[in-house]
């Protein structure tokens, strides 16, 4: 029976697509509830459900073209990820991040390409295109674990930073390889490097300019949560579009810049500079908006990936060796990239060496996902022979499935085994007590409001508030005793509170500038001072608080 009965067979209409999206969102919400109980990464669960959909082709009828995935779903995902990436921490590890992202991706592109060319027997350029698309790591599933396990922020920044930049590098390398396969084109290293610099650098520049414009001209001058939030949405898509269609917009024939790098740059500028120019209300609205959008888009991407894989049509017997070759190649090359480039980095920058346990997580956490699949789907429009495209598509799907289902489900065990899970029982207990205080105070406030508005009898409201107050007092005493037993937690709390307070001070200064209480100059001066304070706090956290071993010996 057709799920969408009113649609004619084979006809795709708007309502049908809309209903399919509604079904997917409902499934996504249901999966989000289920994974909370079964401890499987959310994205892994979504892909599995998407794969199951392949056996029920009439259940949802959604035609997401590769261009639509890239142009509609990828920009908000990247923008949201960069929005929360602190520049101070990214800057501190920019060298290893770029080394892994640029050097690693280039090595991965050619080395994986070579293995696939030699063992699978696809043409060289098709193998290079595969090497490029499969080099893009996707940290969504891993980062979700990092957050729940309380892993060090530095590891999170390394993984996210590498992923954001290697997505862009992989995309550019992939485009160059596919273009070179077109009739009359060729692939020369010198040309490729030149194009890479223009496409990548140009994309970065577009993102920086648009991000700066939105941060300094809109977010700094307008105080309206809706307008400011809408503007960030516009810059996320706008930077991608302007970069990709740069030639068309500015009349330079055939010039395309890297849309992905443009989004990354715009997100970094808005997240690190623009958000500081917003009021607390706007900031909260904006963060909620992007959190919801990222959840929606992520859900759609991974469900659509599952749908696109269409298990029913894959000839496993014929492709199993090719998929195994691809999996072996990415595991081997990822090993060389993480540990080899890690060793080079340790020699060049010993004070910032990436600790060995972090390297293990970076190696096993190098999952492949949305970008790889979206790029693989783009192969359908390339000049490669259809059977080559099919082989590469199946290999990509195989690798993505392997990384998500095997690596994605075992990474949390590895993190725990390496002792990188930051939230210990003491800290968990502290958070529980704090949450209880917070929620009970909210309950008391609500009772107070109801009492004031006359919904509750005044005497009843007072009695209930007093009961709440007694509970809050009890929790406070418990918290104080807990800190007495575990004083190290007190300092972590002090640092976090100081950070929150400095960010609140920044927002307050922005509000005073907007309302005209202080001049822009004075506001700017104070904002810079607070920015410096935050940078100093980062350094204290990084060097003073972990100063039990000299730098460079942290990993041994």
């Amino acid at each position, binding site marked *: 029976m057709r799920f969408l009965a009113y649609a004619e067979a084979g006809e795709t209409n708007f309502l049908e697509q809309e209903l399919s999206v509604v079904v997917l969102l409902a499934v996504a919400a249901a999966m989000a509830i289920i994974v909370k109980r079964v401890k499987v990464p959310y994205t892994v669960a979504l892909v599995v459900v998407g794969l199951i959909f392949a056996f029920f082709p009439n259940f949802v009828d959604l035609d997401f073209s590769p261009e639509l995935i890239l142009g509609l779903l990828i920009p908000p995902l990247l923008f949201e990820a960069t929005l929360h990436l602190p520049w101070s921490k990214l800057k501190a590890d920019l060298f290893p991040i770029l080394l892994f992202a640029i050097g690693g991706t280039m090595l991965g592109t050619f080395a994986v390409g070579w293995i696939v060319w030699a063992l699978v027997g696809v043409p060289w350029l098709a193998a290079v295109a595969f090497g490029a698309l499969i080099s893009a790591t996707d940290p969504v599933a891993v980062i979700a674990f990092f957050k729940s396990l309380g892993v060090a922020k530095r590891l999170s920044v390394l993984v996210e930073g590498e992923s954001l930049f290697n997505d862009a590098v992989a995309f550019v390398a992939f485009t160059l390889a596919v273009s070179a396969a077109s009739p009359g084109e060729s692939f020369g290293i010198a040309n490729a490097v030149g194009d890479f610099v223009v496409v990548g650098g140009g994309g970065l520049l577009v993102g920086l300019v648009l991000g700066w414009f939105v941060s300094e001209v809109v977010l700094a001058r307008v105080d309206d949560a809706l307008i400011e939030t809408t503007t960030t949405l516009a810059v996320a898509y706008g930077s991608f579009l302007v970069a990709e269609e740069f030639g068309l917009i500015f009349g330079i024939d055939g010039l395309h810049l890297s849309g992905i790098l443009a989004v990354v740059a715009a997100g970094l500028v808005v997240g690190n500079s623009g958000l500081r120019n917003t009021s607390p209300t706007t900031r909260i609205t904006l963060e909620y908006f992007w959190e919801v959008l990222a959840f929606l888009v992520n859900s759609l991407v991974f469900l659509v990936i599952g749908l696109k894989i269409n298990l029913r049509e894959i000839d496993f017997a014929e492709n199993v060796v090719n998929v195994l070759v691809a999996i072996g190649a990415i595991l081997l090359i990822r090993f060389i990239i993480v540990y080899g480039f890690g060793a080079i980095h340790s020699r060049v920058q010993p004070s910032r060496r990436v600790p060995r346990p972090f390297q293990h997580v970076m190696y096993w956490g190098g999952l492949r996902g949305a970008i790889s699949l979206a790029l693989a789907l783009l192969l359908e429009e390339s000049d490669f022979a259809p059977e080559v495209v099919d082989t590469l598509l199946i290999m990509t799907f195989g690798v993505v499935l392997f990384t998500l289902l095997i690596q994605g489900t075992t990474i949390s065990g590895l993190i725990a085994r390496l002792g990188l899970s930051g939230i210990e029982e003491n800290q968990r207990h502290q958070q529980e007590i704090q949450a209880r205080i917070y929620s009970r105070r909210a309950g008391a406030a609500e009772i107070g409001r109801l009492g004031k508005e006359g919904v509750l009898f005044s005497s009843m409201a007072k009695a209930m508030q007093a009961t709440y107050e007694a509970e809050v007092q009890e929790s406070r005493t418990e918290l104080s005793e807990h800190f007495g037993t575990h004083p190290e937690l*007190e300092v972590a709390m*002090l640092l976090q509170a100081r950070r929150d307070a400095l960010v609140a001070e920044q927002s307050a200064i922005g509000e005073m500038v907007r309302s005209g209480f202080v001049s822009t100059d004075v506001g700017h001066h104070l904002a810079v001072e607070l920015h410096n304070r935050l940078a100093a706090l980062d*350094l204290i956290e990084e060097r003073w608080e972990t100063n039990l071993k000299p730098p460079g010996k942290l990993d041994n």
Partner: protein
Amino acid sequence: MSTDVTGELIYVSWGGTGRGAALRAAYDQAASAGQSLTYLAILDPPHFSDLDSGLIELVAEELDWLLNAHMRTVAEASYQQVESTKVVVRVGEVDDEVEALAKAPGVKAIVLGAPVDIGGRSVHDLMGALQTRTGLPVDIINPDAPPLT
């Protein structure tokens, strides 16, 4: 400093405020002895020498703010009270900075808050050197306190 205190205890740390237990122990020791307490925080070259002077000044200012807040938190939580407390943040070698501060009149003892080696030198060497240079008793406070990880 109040007139009824019987001297000064210097609590020295060159990292790891997270060993809050050590500061609490130093606070209680000073309170029991009726001494004032000085928290000497040292930004030492092995960890901070690569920062330019402007940045290290900022780090020192921010650390001063944090340690004052930490000291107040410890004072709030303690059943005893220290008459006078202060935080001093210095940039330099641990030995030199401790010696410079210990020259002040009234300093009775020095306690080290971080029982960890420093720049390839054992903490026991450092204790010996500080004892020789200042002529004061030097001890590691609460050595069993959990280190910050």
